[in-house]
């Protein structure tokens, strides 16, 4: 049965939950406390429940059995059912991630539509303030998860081993484990609707997050689980890129997307723990009566904000570095020119990684932290524009004098440049302490981060989806629908978010259910734009579904690109390459005569004579 592993995971998960929850009840009885308190019961029951789910869904069969001397059980499933299993093939895991996060993106986008309906006119429109706060918080955290994991987990998993000429990731079972940690995250977040919701945004600042409804506990558990998945994924990418590059794939020949995943993984591996620690401290405050953030009993609410942003600012570079990599991966192939200033760009990535760790307190300029910290954090923040500037140097140098092929992936990559430029320039206003005193926590900030994350990361994600669609599915998407999707989304995205800068300046703060009546007409305009933006995804989804089902067969290399993944059939065979490819040149050397990136299928002598095309 197709869904047997998932059903077994659910049953084992429920058993684990009952075991843990039962234990909690027992301990409470022994301590003489009221036995049935939902919050501690859920918190304690969750972890054995999670373990039960993971073992049941497949970790027991393909992994844990060998710890007890039993033979592992692997089914050879190669049809659609493999997507519902604890499969270890990186290409399957990539698709699992990608589809999951596109669905979550659409769900969180739907929440955004509900918010825009509510904000169409001042005063209550369709929902209560409490429900609005919950929907807004859900929109925030789900989109953050999408931004962190859609490119890395989805396209990174699919493409990185192919791009470096590897057979799979370094730790295929850990890879499957990182993916199967994601469904519990989604289930927990959706369950908050049955637990009173949570109204503290994705930032969960205490004391608010310690006094609100039990939904907050589910949120904390979800984000801690998600963080665990990120850390495991990052570990896997670092090991893969360090150890599994094909012969000749030197660091100077590494495709730029791989570099960006490497840089982002470094942040993921080393910063994510801080968020988990902060959320755990909130759980301990709530369930065990500890007082990390309780001012009345000696705690410090500001402490949380530092811990939170110590992860969450580097996290925006976990989101945007792979987006840089993806856009810059696509630009050379569709400009038919080498990637401009490649070594400088790589240095820029690592400049961003370094600086990302020392700018977190720019989120705290109005928090009441000591004044003398403002100057230093403003300075480090402004300095990030230097390595980020190298991304623009490289992008503009690549397209300048190129032979541009304006296919859908290229349009999205160029759209990324434009949007991220607005996101970057408006970021300066937030980094500057004097202007930030006014702009902090207003719609100016909402506009800014939607330009960087949606205009940047999400546009790059779509660029990548269209770019690798033929490789992933073996079929070609519809180019007309793709271009329609781009222009529709690009124009309505800009008309939705540009007016938000004005709103912020004119006194509309963020995360509000109601606003001064004078701001009604601009909000109505934004809402209508937002509905049009939302409807553009109908074009996207129908293109994807129809093309995957009935699109024309895709060639192995429809873009005449030089990188390794295009030198194998679409979709690639299970073990990717007939033999380890021999890398002999740069990946982006378009225009050089007789230049070759790699020899595929030669040393093994088994496969296609995949000598590199020169365009």
């Amino acid at each position, binding site marked *: 049965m197709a869904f047997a592993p998932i059903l077994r995971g659910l049953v084992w998960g429920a058993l684990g939950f009952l075991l843990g929850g039962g234990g909690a009840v027992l301990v409470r009885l022994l301590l003489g406390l009221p036995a049935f308190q939902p919050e501690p019961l859920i918190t304690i029951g969750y972890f054995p429940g999670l373990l039960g789910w993971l073992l049941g869904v497949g970790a027991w069969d393909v992994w844990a059995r060998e710890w007890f001397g039993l033979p592992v059980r692997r089914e050879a499933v190669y049809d659609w059912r493999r997507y519902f299993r604890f499969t270890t093939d990186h290409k399957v895991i990539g698709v699992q991630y990608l589809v999951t996060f596109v669905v979550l993106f659409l769900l969180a986008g739907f929440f955004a539509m509900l918010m825009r309906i509510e904000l169409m006119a001042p005063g209550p429109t369709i929902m209560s303030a409490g429900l609005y706060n919950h929907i807004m918080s859900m929109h925030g955290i789900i989109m953050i998860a999408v931004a962190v994991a859609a490119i890395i987990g989805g396209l990174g998993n699919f493409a990185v081993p192919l791009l470096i000429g590897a057979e799979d990731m370094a730790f295929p079972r850990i890879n499957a484990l990182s993916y199967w940690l994601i469904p519990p995250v989604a289930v927990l977040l959706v369950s908050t609707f049955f637990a009173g919701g949570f109204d503290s945004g994705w930032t969960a600042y205490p004391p608010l997050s310690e006094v609100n409804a039990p939904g907050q506990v589910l949120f904390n558990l979800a984000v801690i689980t998600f963080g665990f998945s990120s850390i495991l994924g990052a570990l896997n990418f670092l090991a893969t890129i360090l150890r599994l590059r094909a012969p000749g794939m030197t660091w100077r020949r590494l495709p730029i997307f791989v570099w960006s995943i490497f840089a982002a993984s470094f942040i993921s591996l080393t910063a994510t723990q801080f968020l988990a620690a902060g959320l755990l401290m909130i759980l301990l405050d709530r369930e065990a009566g500890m007082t990390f953030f309780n*001012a009345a009993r000696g705690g410090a609410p500001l402490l949380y904000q530092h811990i939170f942003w110590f992860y969450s600012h580097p996290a925006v570079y976990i989101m945007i570095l792979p987006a840089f990599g993806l856009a810059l991966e696509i630009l050379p192939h569709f400009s038919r020119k080498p990637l401009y200033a490649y070594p400088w760009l790589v240095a820029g990535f690592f400049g961003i990684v370094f600086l990302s760790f020392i700018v977190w307190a720019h989120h705290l300029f109005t928090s009441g932290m000591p004044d003398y910290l403002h100057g230093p954090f403003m300075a480090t923040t402004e300095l990030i524009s230097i390595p980020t500037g190298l991304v623009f140097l490289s992008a503009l140098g690549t397209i300048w004098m190129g032979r541009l092929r304006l296919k859908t992936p290229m349009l999205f990559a160029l759209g990324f440049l434009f949007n991220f430029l607005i996101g970057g320039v408006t970021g*300066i206003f937030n980094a500057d302490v004097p202007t930030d005193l006014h702009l902090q926590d207003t719609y100016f900030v909402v506009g800014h981060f939607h330009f960087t994350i949606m205009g940047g990361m999400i546009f790059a994600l779509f660029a990548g989806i269209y770019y690798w669609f033929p490789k992933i599915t073996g079929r070609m998407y519809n180019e007309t629908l793709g271009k329609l999707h781009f222009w529709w989304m690009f124009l309505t995205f800009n008309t939705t978010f540009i007016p938000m800068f004005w709103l912020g300046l004119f006194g509309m703060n963020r995360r509000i259910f109601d606003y001064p009546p004078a701001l009604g007409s601009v909000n109505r305009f934004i809402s209508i734009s937002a509905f049009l933006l939302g409807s553009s995804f109908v074009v996207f989804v129908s293109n994807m579904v129809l093309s995957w089902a009935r699109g024309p067969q895709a060639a192995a290399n429809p873009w005449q690109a030089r990188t390794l993944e295009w030198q194998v059939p679409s979709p690639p065979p299970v073990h990717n390459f007939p033999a380890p490819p021999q890398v002999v040149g740069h990946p982006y050397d378009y225009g050089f005569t007789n230049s070759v990136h790699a020899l595929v299928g030669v040393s093994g002598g088994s496969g296609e004579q995949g000598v590199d095309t020169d365009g």
Partner: protein
Amino acid sequence: MGRHYLKAAILWILLTAIGEFLALRIPLFPTAAAEEARIIDSSFILLMILGIPVFTFVLAVLIYTLSTFRSREEAPEDGPPVHGRPAVALLWITITAGLAIYVIFNPGLKGLAELRANQRADLVVRVEGSRWFWKVTYPEYGITAREIVLPVHRRVRFEVTSVDVVHSFWVPAFRVKIDAVPGIVTRVFVTPTQTGTFQEDYHFRLQCAELCGLGHSMMTAPVTVLEQGEFDAWVGKAKP
């Protein structure tokens, strides 16, 4: 080849001129009713003036590239094999670093110094946030109110705190914001320069700017700036 650079440069200059013209002509700010608002608005304008050429540079290259360097469908070919010279990257880094460092000093540190130059206050007003209303007290006069009333041209020190969750003190007409954090007292200075009331202009309002739960968006209080004589009269009436 040189022609392309020249044309793109002309496009850049043109776009910059249009951008600067618009930035200086379009009203960007609501009522500025305090000395702090003047400092903050002029910081904003300086950043606009500096940011527009950066924005239009990229925009000009994008527009020019898209309109000129298209691949011909009938005869696909590759572009020139250029990796980029170190000199260009170094020049680029020098310019971006120069801009970034300049912006740190002006308007950044300069604006901060102006905002913090004067630590004396003519009047102290304590503001306490609790879900979901503001309590305003004037220790000098023994007044407790649900609104902020200030005399014009007098430097005020707000001492802000919270009794429950984190709130944030924000008056859009003054441009300043400071969180109200339980357990600590935060401070912000404001020197009103213009009279006004919430009834005439919604930017004269104290708005909670940090998510604090159900009543967050409704957590406001009116702000009034009066001439000194009118303020004294208000104090006389409001005194218990």
